């Protein structure tokens, strides 16, 4: 089942009907809403990097194996994740968990199997 391509077609309810609007929805955030509304347990967000990093591209860069929602929100506030790249993915992860999702995994395309088995990627959940 393939859905919500490109973040979905944005529509507004106005004057008694839904109408398309000239906007784009972040595809990871739309994925979070869709996954939660369908009762999906795991949201797997694929990106260019194997893990989410603190101090990304700095000499002291460090990969995150696991983040709780609270930790993720702290890191966001500390400005660890750049706008337009990792930030919306972390926001989507938090959205999904807030909407009742169980687990989020962020990893790269070539590490899906290892990440789903818990051997790599960055995993997020409530506890």
């Amino acid at each position, binding site marked *: *089942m*393939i*859905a*919500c*391509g*490109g*973040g*979905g*077609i*944005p*529509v*507004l*309810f*106005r004057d008694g009907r*839904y109408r*398309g*609007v*000239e*906007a*784009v*929805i*972040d*595809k*990871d*955030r*739309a*994925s*979070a*809403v*869709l*996954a939660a*509304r*369908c*009762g*999906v*347990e*795991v*949201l*797997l*967000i*694929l*990106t*260019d990097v194997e893990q989410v990093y603190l101090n990304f591209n700095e000499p002291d860069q460090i990969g995150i194996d696991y983040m709780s929602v609270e930790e993720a929100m702290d890191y966001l506030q500390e400005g660890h994740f750049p706008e337009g790249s990792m930030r919306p993915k972390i926001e989507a992860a938090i959205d999904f968990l807030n909407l009742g999702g*169980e*687990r989020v995994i962020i990893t790269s*395309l070539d590490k*899906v*199997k290892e990440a*789903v088995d818990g051997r790599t990627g960055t995993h997020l959940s409530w506890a």
Partner: protein
Amino acid sequence: MPQRRPTSILVAFGGNAILKEQQQGTAEEQFANLDSALECVADLIQEGFKVIITHGNGPQVGVLMRQGEAAEDLVPPMPLDVLVAETQGQIGYMIQNSLVNIFRTRQIKRSVVSVVTQVVVNADDPAFDNPSKGVGRFYTEEQAQARMANREDLVMREDAGRGWRRMVPSPEPIDVLEVDFVKGAYSGGTW
């Protein structure tokens, strides 16, 4: 403590699963990228997961905008919501075709369908007052000013030192209009 193994997963593919940055953007390139990117979906299904796939469309929607602009004296350009719908069909087809062939090779009995999906946003979303997401190609400042002079609703701005680009709002998703269908179909486990 061992965790219970989950049985359902939504895989959100980034744009680079479909088209790499240095590539031209031919259909062949996109099919070839998907042929390798989608093997992991077959792995997940063979491990017993029910899978929903979502995908990006940045490069593809940029191409459609460019085609619309190039032909704007011949046929009316389509608005962005219609272009997103076009890419859902285009990329959805490519994923279906690639995945159906992977399933066939692995003898997985499963249909693959794409759902044209409308996502509800809120008219009061502050994003509508601050178009912040760059879409489409880059222009020189003169080209951008000329385009904006022709179209009152067009917002173009200098984007990260790479040139001028159209900026559109990126509102928060509130709901998915086709969610009942998606949920019913995927949870049956045959789609």
